[in-house]
């Protein structure tokens, strides 16, 4: 560990670790505890404020290792789940470090390095939150290398410059690797000036993903691929019923099954450990677990609970007196109601972990979005200090919010301790579908009133939703009280047309009998579907063009102007028109999420009764774009994933269990559903990078529903359409 944990900003006596080859050394590091300004930070993550970074930033040596062959190993505190963060971070770091992209190897920081984000990877914040800190860290490290080189070369630092990882001056040159090999200790200087954006070589360029080749060649990079010597396989019995509490189990029959090493019966779960996965799963089927359930739930019960007007309301937005203007009995009030179902994450890689618990330490390799929380849960259960638990995160086979809750890691650790060997344990697919932390169902009620000249006088959005933020292990209970409303459930639920004189938004909280939580973009998908469908309905009532109608209700504030620009550009790019032509029609929708405005135009037809999306035009302004190719990839993926949720997906509760439990029966967009054309246009009306991975999910549902209306005259308000 480091020589002095309490060391303050300024000095690091630690030596950069020099390794001849990757994967041969163990990196040491301090555990860093920041004093978290949690409230601001949480708000930043889920809403529109600045995205903060919640890890250590004062010591470049825990971020970068320099190897003898002059490779920089970048220990990323954010995990890579497909969103392209590793690539974007490498681009940013390469700029200030003055190295080539190919000289940087990005790896997931183990907790042992000390470079951990206290919060999570999620909320489309990774690039935005590290934009400033990472450049500062990288630039600081470059200066440290220059300073050290000056000493080693015996020349003035002012005569040296760095390029491609080589420091040159006065006719001499030395590689970073050589500098590090000779250096004994490091002084951390004041943060140097950062490079001007005009000098960027990598930022803003469509650099191929740094993990591309590994992913194309099938390299073993995921949690599911992890192994440890002598590893056994564990299988935990999970309930198929909603609201089931574990009471105990009869394991006698399982004990004699082939390959069984041990049965672990704890107060809160039962699992079996065997020599192979197949043997563990076979033995698991013979365990008779007892569960108590209070009620045999049905879909109708859930639908009856999710109703605006029931549960606890919280006013989340208020301007003017919308409430009075739209009160019952007022004339001219237009009301529409929208519904969205329970959604499954359905990420391809099941939740799992490989854990090895020894007498005084635990090591866990896994896919997780919450490294720090995972570590805390294991430490607590094992009776260890957090420092005794090492979490080595891996590439995630999809995140989408599913890996923000990882009690399975703790179960693997318990099983490992029971047998004194490493244990790998993961969900089967049925368990994934029935024990998901679902996207909550919603009921959205929109009310509006028009003026005589066809403008919106007042608008109100009410959303009833299961919990997202509340009840999440990610969010401290105290904070839930401080924040007071479920900021996850109402993400995307605020009225963003600030030119409307009277608007109001109200969130109604419902506690459901199964876990609901973070699903990519949280409430944005359902809330934007309701608001932007309703905007179209109002435009039609007002006799206005839906694009102009939206623009009519935006102001001159920066946020509104950015939204207006994407709206205008999307209409132009798509050649938006209102009437159906040749069996196809266009639908328009827009929203701003996490400071990133986005507008979609969807072009649809109906074929054999099914909605077919042929083309989507997407205009998004995420601010500065680090990697246009990966931003496009996020837009393409978000559009199709959003289509999937809006057109196909739905979990139901039948006789106490959630169904379906398999792909196919859980209908999702497949190749044949993907639009043949997706035109992504990126605007950059901000000088810093913003959110990318979720905002394009927002408007897709309403864009499709609005197109279907233009085609058929039928207004579809219930998801899946």
């Amino acid at each position, binding site marked *: 560990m480091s020589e002095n944990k309490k060391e303050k900003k300024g000095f690091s006596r630690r030596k950069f670790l020099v390794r001849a080859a990757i994967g041969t050394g163990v990196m040491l590091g301090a555990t860093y505890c920041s004093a978290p300004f949690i409230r601001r930070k949480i708000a930043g993550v889920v809403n529109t404020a600045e995205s903060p970074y919640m890890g250590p930033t004062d010591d470049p040596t825990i971020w970068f290792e320099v190897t003898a062959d002059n490779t920089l190993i970048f220990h990323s505190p954010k995990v890579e789940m497909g969103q392209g963060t590793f690539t974007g971070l490498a681009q940013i770091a390469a700029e200030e470090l003055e190295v080539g992209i190919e000289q940087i190897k990005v790896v997931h920081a183990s907790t042992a390095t000390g470079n951990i984000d206290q919060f999570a990877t999620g909320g489309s914040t990774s690039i935005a939150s590290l934009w400033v800190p990472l450049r500062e860290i990288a630039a600081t490290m470059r200066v440290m290398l220059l300073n050290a080189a000056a000493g080693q070369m015996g020349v003035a630092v002012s005569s040296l410059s760095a390029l491609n990882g080589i420091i040159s001056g006065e006719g001499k040159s030395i590689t970073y690797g050589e500098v590090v090999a000779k250096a004994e200790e490091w002084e951390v200087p004041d943060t140097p000036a950062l490079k001007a954006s005009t000098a960027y070589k990598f930022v803003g360029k469509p650099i191929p993903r740094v993990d591309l080749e590994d992913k194309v060649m099938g390299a073993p990079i995921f949690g599911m691929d992890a192994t440890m010597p002598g590893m056994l396989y564990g299988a935990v019995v999970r309930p198929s019923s909603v609201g089931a509490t574990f009471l105990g189990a009869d394991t006698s029959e399982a004990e004699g099954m082939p390959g069984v090493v041990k049965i672990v019966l704890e107060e809160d779960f039962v699992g079996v450990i065997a020599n192979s996965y197949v043997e563990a799963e076979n033995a698991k*089927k013979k365990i008779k677990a007892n569960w108590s359930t209070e009620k045999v739930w049905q879909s109708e019960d859930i639908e009856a609970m999710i109703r605006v007007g029931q549960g606890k309301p919280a006013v989340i937005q208020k301007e003017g007196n919308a409430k009075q203007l739209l009160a019952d009995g007022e004339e001219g009030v237009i009301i529409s109601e929208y519904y969205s179902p329970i959604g499954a994450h359905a990420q391809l890689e099941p939740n799992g972990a490989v854990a090895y618990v020894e007498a005084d330490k635990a090591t866990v390799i896994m896919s997780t979005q919450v490294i720090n929380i995972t570590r805390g849960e294991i430490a607590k259960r094992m009776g260890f200090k957090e420092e005794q638990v090492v979490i080595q995160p891996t590439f995630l086979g999809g995140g989408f919010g599913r890996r923000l809750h990882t009690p399975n890691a703790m179960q693997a650790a318990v099983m490992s301790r029971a047998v004194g060997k490493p244990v790998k344990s993961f969900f089967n697919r049925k368990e994934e579908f029935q024990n998901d932390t679902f996207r909550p169902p919603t009921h959205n009620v929109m009310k509006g009133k028009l003026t005589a000249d066809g403008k919106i006088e007042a608008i109100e959005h009410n959303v009833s939703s299961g919990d997202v933020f509340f009840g999440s292990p990610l969010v401290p209970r105290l904070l839930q009280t401080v924040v007071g409303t479920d900021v996850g459930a109402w993400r995307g639920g605020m009225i963003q047309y600030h030119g409307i004189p009277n608007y109001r938004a109200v969130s109604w909280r419902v506690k459901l009998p199964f876990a609901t939580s973070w699903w990519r973009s949280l409430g944005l998908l359902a809330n934007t579907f309701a608001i932007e469908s309703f905007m179209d309905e109002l435009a039609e009532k007002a006799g206005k063009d839906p694009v102009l109608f939206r623009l009519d209700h935006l102001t001159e504030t920066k946020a509104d102007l950015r939204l207006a620009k994407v709206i205008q550009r999307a209409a132009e790019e798509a050649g938006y028109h209102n009437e159906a032509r040749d069996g196809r029609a266009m639908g328009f929708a827009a929203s701003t999420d996490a400071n990133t405005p986005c507008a979609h135009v969807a072009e649809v037809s109906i074929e054999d009764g099914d909605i077919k999306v042929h083309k989507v035009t997407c205009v998004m302004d995420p601010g500065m774009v680090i990697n246009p190719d990966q931003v496009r990839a996020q837009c393409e993926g978000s559009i199709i994933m959003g289509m999937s949720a809006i057109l196909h997906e739905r979990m139901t509760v039948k006789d106490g269990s959630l169904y379906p439990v398999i792909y*196919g*029966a859980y209908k999702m967009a497949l190749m044949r559903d993907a639009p043949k054309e997706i035109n992504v246009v990126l605007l950059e009306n901000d000088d810093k990078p913003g959110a990318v991975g979720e905002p394009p999910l927002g408007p897709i549902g309403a864009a499709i529903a609005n197109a279907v209306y233009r085609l058929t005259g039928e207004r579809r308000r219930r998801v899946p359409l």
Partner: protein
Amino acid sequence: MKHLLTSLFILAFMGVCVAFTEVSPFGESNRSSEANLDEAPFDIMMKVLTHKRCVNCHPSGNRPRQGEDSHIHNFNVQRGADDHGLAGLQCSTCHQSENNDFSGVPGAPHWGLAPVEMAWAGKTRVEIATQMMDPARNGGKNLDEIVKHLTEDELVGWAWNPGIDHEGKPREPVPVAKDEFTAAVKAWAAAGAVIPEQ
């Protein structure tokens, strides 16, 4: 007639015994034979042929059905040129020559669809039987060959051993024991393969 009924009774009894002793892993024994002694061999035979275990893969059109509710096969699976799937998505991508208890994917030798001219879905039992006897729509089979197909073909035989589904639940087998069905088919053929009017 009395002799035939006695034979059928014995066979039916044996069939049930077989189910109890050998095929029980899939719950076949729980099903009581719906045959009764007054039923004509044709009726018994057609109970099997009109069952979803048979009809799901005798679809009208190019898309197989699946499941107890005979929904259209997931993932837009299609017949293909040789009734064994599309060139790049053959039935054998997922279905092998026997049931797979790990995945719940059913399997039997030459798993595939009946040719489109042998489509049964949506047809009455008389239409199906008439079609089955028509060499133009039965692959040119004569009566002996039809009997052999119905009673000995391994894919047809799967209907009595349909395995478990993706949740591990037993699929519903056809509602007549195998031996009872075999006896009925043979009896019907021996009596002239007469198809009733309805």
